[in-house]
């Protein structure tokens, strides 16, 4: 007994250090999420009801799906400002195709368009070496403009009702869109942690030169995140349209900011190499909870931007101060 106890104490410190290193940030952000949830539940008795929890999860779907692609892009040290307008454009593509073809084909077409747009951004940044910020800023403008042109400046509202099944079908009482979100995060986490591609993405973001010199396929895995980001934007657009049964060219406006904020709150470094999909999920939940809570409290939507902006900056500031103290 005594020997065993000694052994565990002998091993546990190093285990703590390892765990502390890899999970420290996520754990802290989870703490923050719990604090916010607790505060909101005190302020609004409705906050912690199961109805509202499903509400929060439901509201997390669109932004959550986009944030997965954004995490990958930010991990390689890039940024994708075009996600919001890709949501708008692929939404219009989906809406128009649904007029002429079966639902699965239309969905596939929309997702392929999203992936194609990501491919262009990816090649321009990775192969031609253009700055990701500028490339995706350009794609953002083009995407939104095309969304207006294709739609004729109006929302497409005659969407087949059957599309809403992909949202409202449920399994074990959980709506399918929430299930999809959880499955996507599980897949994303598995990919980034346990596959060659995932680790290559981290290596590229952390030190591109070293990754190249070690023989990793830097070009492919620098393009892939943009393709995934574009495709997932189209998927998010599909879920949104399925809920609203309408495709609006303005859809997804400024969504890139929420997605980037969620990833950064989740602990990713904008220089690349650092961040995790679990952190991003927590980041998404923090963003959505705050918005939901402020709505419940009846805070004017005009004040919500200020509130969310403040919380993002304060969260990062606390993080930086904690890091400073531990590194000095």
């Amino acid at each position, binding site marked *: 007994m005594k020997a065993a106890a000694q052994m565990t104490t002998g091993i546990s410190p190093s285990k703590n250090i390892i765990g502390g290193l890899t999970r420290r940030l996520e754990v802290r952000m989870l703490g923050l999420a719990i604090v916010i949830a607790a505060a909101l539940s005190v302020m609004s008795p409705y906050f912690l009801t199961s109805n509202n929890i499903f509400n929060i999860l439901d509201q997390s779907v669109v932004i959550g799906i986009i944030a997965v692609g954004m995490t990958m892009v930010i991990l390689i040290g890039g940024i994708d400002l075009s996600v919001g307008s890709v949501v708008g454009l692929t939404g219009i593509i989906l809406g128009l195709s649904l007029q002429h073809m079966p639902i699965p084909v239309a969905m596939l077409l929309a997702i392929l368009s999203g992936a194609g747009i990501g491919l262009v951004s990816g090649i321009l940044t990775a192969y031609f070496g253009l700055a990701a910020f500028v490339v995706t800023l350009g794609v953002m403008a083009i995407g939104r403009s095309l969304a207006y042109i294709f739609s004729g400046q109006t929302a497409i509202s005659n969407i087949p009702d059957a599309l809403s099944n992909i949202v409202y079908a449920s399994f074990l009482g959980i709506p399918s869109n929430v299930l999809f979100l959880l499955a996507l995060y599980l897949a994303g986490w598995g990919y980034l942690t346990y596959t*060659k591609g995932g680790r290559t993405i981290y290596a590229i973001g952390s030190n591109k*030169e*070293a990754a190249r010199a070690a*023989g990793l396929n830097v070009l492919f895995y620098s393009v892939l995140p943009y393709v995934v980001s574009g495709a997932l934007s189209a998927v998010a657009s599909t879920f949104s349209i399925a809920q609203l049964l309408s495709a609006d060219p303005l859809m997804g406006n400024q969504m890139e900011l929420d997605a980037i904020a969620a990833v950064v709150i989740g602990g990713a470094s904008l220089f690349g190499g*650092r961040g995790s999909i679990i952190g991003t999920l927590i980041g998404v939940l923090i963003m959505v909870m705050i918005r939901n809570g402020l709505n419940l409290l009846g805070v004017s939507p005009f004040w919500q931007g200020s509130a969310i902006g403040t919380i993002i900056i304060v969260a990062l500031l606390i993080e930086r101060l904690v890091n400073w103290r531990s590194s000095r």
Partner: protein
Amino acid sequence: MNDTSIENHHQTMLTASGIVKSFGRTRALVDAHFELRAGEVHGLLGANGAGKSTLSRIISCHIKPDAGEVVYRGQALQSLSARDALRSGIALVSQETSLAPHLSVLENIFLPELGRPGRLSYARLRKVAADILIRLGHEHALPLDLEVQRLSAAQRQLVEIAKALALDANLLIFDEPTASLSPTEVERLFDIMSRLREDGRGLIFVSHRLEEVFAITDRVTIMREGRSVARSLQTANLGQSDIIRYMVGQDFSTAYSKPAHADSYSGSETVLEVEKLAARPIVRDVSFSVRRGEIVGLGGLVGAGRSEVAEAIFGLRPRSGGSIKIDGKPINPRKPSEAIRAGIGMVAEDRRYQSIVPDLTVRENLLLAHLGVHSGFGLGYAKLQRKLNLLIAKLDLPADRLDANLLTFSGGMQQKIIIARWLLLEPKVLILDEPTKGVDIGTRASIYDILREIAETGVAVVVISSDFSELLSLCSRVVVISDGRSIANLPTNVLDEEKLTLLAAPRTSTTRNTDFLQRLTAQYGGVGFWALIEESEVICLSSAMAAGATDTGLYAGQATKIAATRIPNALEQRAPFFVPDSEAACATILVPMRSQRGHDLGWVGLTLPDTATLPPPETIQSQVSTLNMLD
């Protein structure tokens, strides 16, 4: 001591006593002491991690000590900021230069001025900068308007020094200033340092390189594990082994054992064959080959194109010509992954920027090259676990810290981990660019052992190094690269540091000498050569041949036994007149060549057929000595 001016000149400038500093759990300094006088160069030595960099950063107030005190001219320093320290005349000329690459030389020299209020007068700054460069003896070497990113490493160092002088710094700390300099540039730096010393400034010289310590320092303080184990000893009273003993705490002679003779590999098959490799503009014409189990060195000066040769072979740099063969099969790698698949591994020079992935753990850094060749979707780490464990045990890697951050390890350990990264792939060829850069003396020996063991398993090893003694002790052959050309390929047993230095000398002098030989043969016919002559061996540095001339048996870049040449008599006698060799039916005159400073530069020879009318020996002698005057 009676002379008061000398007294003043040697006044104590700075004392540091009982300095303690910890970073987290690492105790960088335990009990450090240091004393610096005006007008001296004080060496601060120690293995990596001994705390010398920490101590110099404490003296320059970049970091604050946990305990102890630093007194500079009667003023306590430990509460000052780096800016205050700079203002009171303490400047750190750092290893990684702190220059702004896009600003001009002038702007960089006066970077600290930009922080002052008020308008800058560029005309005045320009004048001050010119004065400083004149004082450094480099008024022509450094155009003030050039962007710093276009300067060589040596010129950047010069800007750093000028920057310190612009602040009128009295105490200059040189942290490993010679790491990226060639021998000539080091000489120049030492000239500058001596001038600063004569001005009565105090200089701290932080270095690993013992020869340099003996060349420039007056006194040394040696650190080991955060303590000053030898305080302010007179350099003149010390030998290399004394210093090494203090640094590593043990006697240390095994590091420089003699390598196997090159001939012992003549039976092994050639693994890597590089022919007429070019990667313009830096690599022009490089050929060499490496056999199984052999360690071949690429020597030469910094900037000669050695690293670029490695990069061209490894697919990191586009090639403009030549061929590379592995096991006789030509390969054409356009990126590292293709070179790796062909069986090449490369440990790059700059670990931090070319090898280490800081956000991945030690384990994943070890497995990074594996990840590149792995063809599956998953990681394939599990299959390698046994091989990894073997390597960890063999290379003495920290098995319990595989999940830590690689940057928290010493340079030597980082290097071992990067070497292990390639060993996991079992390469046929392993290229190492400056494998002991930033590695302390104690770990160096273990890296040499590892490289020898790797070679013994049948890997063809190529080592690039600026440290000639390292090449001589590690390699069986050295290929000398000068100005992008392989100019010699010699077994190490016929080489020493002097000869290597001579062979590596920049192409300008070689071109000049070759031109001279060509003029000579154009005038008299026959064969002209420039060679170093040993007891029984000739190393031919360059040769020229008139049409139809007799073969002397000497070839540029090769070492030959005197007896095996066709002019053994002449080479034995080395006479300033024509000595006949009847077998080859020719006569040869040999004239020694000396530099202006009297350095022996070898011999110039002219071989003419014995049927020719021989010119008077005095003419040849005077022609060679005019050449020497031009030097």
